[in-house]
């Protein structure tokens, strides 16, 4: 146990029971004025047809807008009576495209603002490069992978690397946004340092692991900026569906003209619909709502992950998080607080509880581990035994080693030891003593209940047992219940023996556990789950976690972890809070749900638009078509215009939803579906009717149509 400084955590306290993502630590207001300003400008830049091509739905709208622009110009030049109508339709078609561009620009803008902040930390620094034992000053950009540098207090670490010598407290706020310093030292799993962070005290020697331009900070900037954004698998599939629907509607509208011509000839009155009206119908029918907001949803999803201080290496990883079936959670640090606490002293034979407590405390006075300190505290609280100044005695402290598996103190002829059962029993035997028969019963009982027994002995006398207990983080049980409701299986990974593991798993309510887990066991478990068609998510920080992190579908590496772990995972939690994996899963689900909800809404909207536009189109041919005008729209122009305006405004109205994601509550898929179908499906069918009606009346009030 080497965590002398608690891992910084800027996320909300863990005792909050809901897994629903809350506002992240880096949240900005939804409509941050500078971002809005930049987004408005970008909306126009994005009109470039070459960029629009990537979005088939909006490209069709732009092409339509271009067509009506030409017609409006012609009407204007000819002084035709319909010029006002054509002009207004054209205007709103352009607005439709701009609104969609604005949504995308807003989503991107939030990332860009973040990137700008990060860039500021990328100031020119100088490095003390060590070569052949001599120190030379070089610019940080001259450093290459493999170089050795010295960083002293107050200096900025010039590049990513591993600490090879020394220990220092480091301010990583530039990366993590967390101002509490962290300890970085050579060896172990806390040796990684990131370029751009600052050494506050002491010094370290760092072996550089990345070349300029490929540093963690560079990657982070590129990611939040969305420069490398690639469409995710689901997004591609959805794009195919909406592009397909666009083609179907294009066909329905194009073939409508011949049918209209036939009808005009048959009825002998009226005229076939004008191109402007046909374009309006087309734009209203094609799924512009989802088409316009699709990329914004994806970018915003990435951004939401970032706001939670998690750096996702790709959108695909975030999407995969929503699909996860199995969560592998390390017991220590994720499910339990990183340490055990003494909760009980159980004396053996004729030993009194106070005597045991006294001996236990004595053996732990020099023990700086959280367990050791908890023993001292328990003895003080329960038996009012105060910590003693042992310096005046001839005290010799025996530290814990992996070989002896005991620690203790030799003092005034006493030899007090505490440690693993078999080690201490052996110690007692060595000193010619015997252990009471009840010892094994006591230790077994503690193990079965999920605790760890520490046996205390003084030479040949076994005094008793200290009951150490894992302290489960608050709210974990509720979280696992919610995960189960969502159909996600949780597996606790622990180095404990099966007995202890089973007890803790039962206490917190994970579905399964993997006891005495080696890195290989972990890897095998992942492969087994994946072979069964499941997607697996896990967290890790050590170098030996790296293969499993790479194998898992979602590998969340801790920022405090080694570079190898960070490279292997597809996400890095800058707060190094493994429990956050659960929130990442929720964000992934929210991303997929938002897409589904807006697609359903978009398609459901079409029904009302038919009832607005079709009667308007054909009332001249068959006056009886008025019967389809169930909204009672005032006239032809107003009906078409109202539908087009509604279609454009709904994009703007849904930007907050696209950026924030639909509301998410953990529940079973069946319940989620029922709820969302009701809101976005049935709601999508109904909502446009009053909306279009209202716009129609407003157009009348304003004398626009």
């Amino acid at each position, binding site marked *: 146990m080497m965590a002398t400084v608690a891992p910084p955590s800027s996320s909300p306290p863990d005792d909050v029971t809901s897994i629903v993502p809350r506002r992240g630590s880096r949240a900005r207001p939804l409509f941050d004025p500078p971002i809005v300003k930049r987004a408005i400008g970008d909306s126009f830049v994005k009109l470039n047809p070459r960029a629009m091509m990537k979005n088939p739905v909006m490209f069709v709208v732009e092409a339509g807008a271009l067509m009506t622009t030409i017609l409006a110009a012609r009407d204007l030049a000819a002084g035709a009576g319909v010029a006002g109508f054509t002009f207004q339709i054209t205007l709103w078609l352009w607005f439709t495209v701009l609104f969609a561009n604005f949504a995308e620009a807003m989503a991107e803008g939030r990332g860009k603002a973040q990137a700008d902040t990060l860039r500021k930390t990328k100031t020119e620094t100088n490095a003390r490069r060590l070569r052949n034992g001599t120190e030379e000053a070089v610019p940080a950009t001259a450093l290459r992978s493999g170089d050795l540098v010295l960083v002293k207090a107050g200096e900025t670490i010039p590049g990513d690397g591993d600490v090879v010598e020394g220990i220092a407290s480091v301010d990583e706020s530039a990366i993590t946004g967390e101002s509490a310093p962290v300890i970085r030292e050579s060896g172990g799993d806390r040796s990684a340092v990131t370029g751009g962070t600052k050494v506050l005290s002491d010094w370290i020697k760092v072996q550089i692991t990345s070349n300029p331009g490929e540093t963690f900070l560079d990657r982070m900037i590129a990611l939040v900026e969305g420069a490398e954004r690639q469409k995710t698998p689901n997004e591609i599939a959805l794009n195919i569906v909406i592009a397909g629907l666009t083609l179907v509607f294009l066909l329905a509208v194009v073939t409508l003209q011949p049918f209209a011509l036939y009808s005009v000839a048959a009825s002998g009155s009226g005229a076939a619909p004008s191109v402007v009206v046909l374009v309006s119908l087309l734009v209203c029918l094609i799924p512009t709502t989802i088409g316009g907001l699709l990329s914004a949803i994806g970018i915003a999803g990435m951004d939401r992950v970032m706001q939670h201080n998690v750096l996702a290496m790709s959108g695909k990883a975030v999407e995969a998080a929503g699909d996860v079936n199995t969560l592998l959670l390390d017991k220590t640090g994720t499910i339990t607080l990183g340490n055990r606490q003494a909760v009980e002293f159980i004396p053996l034979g004729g030993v009194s509880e106070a005597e045991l407590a006294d001996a236990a405390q004595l053996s732990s006075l020099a023990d700086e581990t959280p367990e050791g300190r908890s023993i001292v505290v328990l003895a003080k609280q329960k038996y009012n035994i105060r910590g003693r100044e042992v310096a005046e005695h001839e005290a010799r402290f025996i530290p814990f080693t992996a070989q002896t598996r005991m620690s203790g103190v030799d003092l005034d002829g006493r030899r007090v030891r505490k440690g693993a059962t078999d080690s201490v029993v052996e110690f007692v035997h060595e000193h010619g003593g015997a252990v009471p028969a009840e010892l094994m019963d006591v230790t077994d009982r503690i193990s079965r209940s999920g605790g760890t027994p520490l046996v205390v002995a003084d030479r040949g006398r076994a005094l008793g047992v200290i009951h150490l207990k894992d302290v489960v983080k608050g709210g974990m049980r509720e979280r696992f219940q919610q995960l189960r409701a969502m159909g996600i299986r949780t597996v606790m990974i622990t180095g404990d023996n099966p007995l202890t593991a089973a007890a803790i798993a039962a206490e917190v309510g994970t579905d399964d556990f993997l006891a005495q887990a080696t890195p290989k066991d972990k890897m095998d478990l992942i492969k087994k789950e994946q072979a069964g068609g499941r997607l697996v998510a896990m967290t890790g920080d050590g170098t030996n976690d790296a293969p499993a992190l790479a194998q898992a579908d979602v590998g969340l590496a801790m920022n405090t972890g080694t570079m190898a772990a960070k490279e292997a995972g597809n996400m890095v939690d800058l707060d190094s809070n493994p429990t956050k994996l659960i929130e990442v899963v929720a964000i992934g689900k929210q991303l997929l749900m938002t897409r589904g909800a807006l697609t359903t809404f978009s398609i459901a909207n079409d029904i009302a638009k038919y009832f607005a536009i079709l009667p308007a189109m054909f009332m001249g041919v068959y006056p009886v078509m008025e019967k389809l005008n169930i909204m009672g729209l005032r006239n032809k122009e107003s009906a078409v215009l109202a539908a087009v305006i509604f279609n454009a405004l709904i994009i703007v109205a849904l930007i907050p939803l696209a950026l924030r994601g639909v509301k998410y509550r953990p529940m079973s898929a069946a319940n989620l579906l029922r709820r969302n*179908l009701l809101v976005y499906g049935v709601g999508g069918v109904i909502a446009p009717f009053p909306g279009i009606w209202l716009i129609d009346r407003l157009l009348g009030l304003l004398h626009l149509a």
Partner: protein
Amino acid sequence: MTGNGLLQIGLYVAVLVLLTKPIGAYMAKVFAGERTWMHRVLRPLEAAVYKLCGIDENAEQRWTQYAGGVLAFSAVSIVFSYVLLRVQQWFPLNPQGLANVGPDLSFNTAVSFGTNTNWQSYVPETTMSYFSEMAALVTHNFFSAAVGIAVAIAVIRGFARHSVKTLGNFWVDSTRTIVYVLLPLSVAGALLLCSQGVIQNFNSYTKAATVEGAAQTIPQGPFASQEAIKELGTNGGGSLNANSAHPYENPTPFSNFVEMLMIFLIPAGLTYTFGKMVRDTRQGWALFAAMTILFLIGVFIVYSSEQAGNPILAKLGIESAATATQPGGNMEGKEVRFGIVNSSLFTVITTDASCGAVNNMHDSLTPLGGLVPMVNIELGEVIFGGVGSGLYGMLLFAVLAVFIAGLMVGRTPEYLGKKIERKEVKMMMLAVLVLAFTILGFAAYGSVAQFHKDSWVNPPGPVIANLNNNGPHGLSEILYAYTSAVGNNGSAFAGIDANTPFFNTTIGLAMLSGRFLMLIPLLAAAGSLAQKKLVPVSAGTFPTHGPLFVALLVGVVLIVGALTFFPALSLGPIVEHFLMYQGKLWS
């Protein structure tokens, strides 16, 4: 609507529900290659076919090989029929001495029967010899039905299997369909129909004198054998122009009930087969429920619209209410022995399934009564649908429904444990596009086409000169023709002279694309699905067996169909309906 009418509809649905499980379970066994009680009699026949054709019963095919088999088999049998029709006068069993059939009509007819459409641009009794009927056409009733069912089974295997590349063997699946399913059922069906008076002979046509003393020729023929497979295989092509309205094909209300049952029997049974094969019969019943709901919606619209009759006639003082002595409503084009309810029921059944047999004149239906059959076909023939094609069509919609709404549960959409991804979605959209493109494209061109004065493909002038009706009803007739062709239905509004090279060719092409451009993408999707791993079911899985999914599926079928075809339909039957109530008549 009368109580008696509703009772008959209820009886039909009840009997259908009862038959679905036994026939479905039987087919599941047949296609798994398990022994059934029919094996003792039919296994030798099956084995003989394999031996004769050199088929390895145990060989498995990838989707491409499977599709290759489907295409090769269909192509060869279509060419065979084409040739036979072109030279029928030199073959026996032609007591009327009917002439060889022309090239465009032969093409249209061979394609029509080969695609399970059975659109007939001709009058059978004056065009086809008994030999042509049996060798060129009835064979297809078996073959094309077998192709449809085989493809459905392959598509089901795409969902049922996992981590494999193969979908079964087309030659084995189609042989088993014919030997174990179609043959025994049609023999039983033909005998049942004979008992009701359907004729079966090779006689020359009977010359008779009518009551008024006019001479009348009454066609004869082997009708019972043809009639049974015509319904069972959802083919629909009659030996008589009047089809199932003719007393020789459909003499009694009971024979009518049997024929209606035979149409839905296999498509309904396949939903259960599907459930069996994917190891969750609830999934099959969900599809069955969605189909039944869509079916009943259609039945009630047609029945109520036909029973309401024509308000213009009512205004003239003609009694249109049902009484003890008369059916009331719109009896134009209907047989008295079937009345309104059994005509409405038959209309909806034959257009839900891509059968196309008719026992009444669809052209004479009220506007809304005529809208329903058209919409039924435009929805993709998925309401029970054609044998096999109905099931795989409905699976297409199920996949789309799962994809669109499935994202809303926060997971990559999955259906039956298979993730629905790019490839599947692409194939499904392709099939939807084909359907919309061919129906709307051909109908749009057909409604404004002009032919110059010495055109040989069609009489000169606008194409609407081929129509018997003006106004919106004329548009409906064109739309119905191509809808029926693409949906491989084969029923017609008639009222359109479609036996011209232009219509024969375009309708022929429409039938081909409606059949094969739909079936190939589905097989491709099945091939991709079969290779996927099975995602285990959990609380996070989109449930696809409950009422919620049924409602969603019905909604998606209706909305996708309505959104595509509503504009065209609004200028046809919908406006015609409003005009009728306004009292406007067309010549």
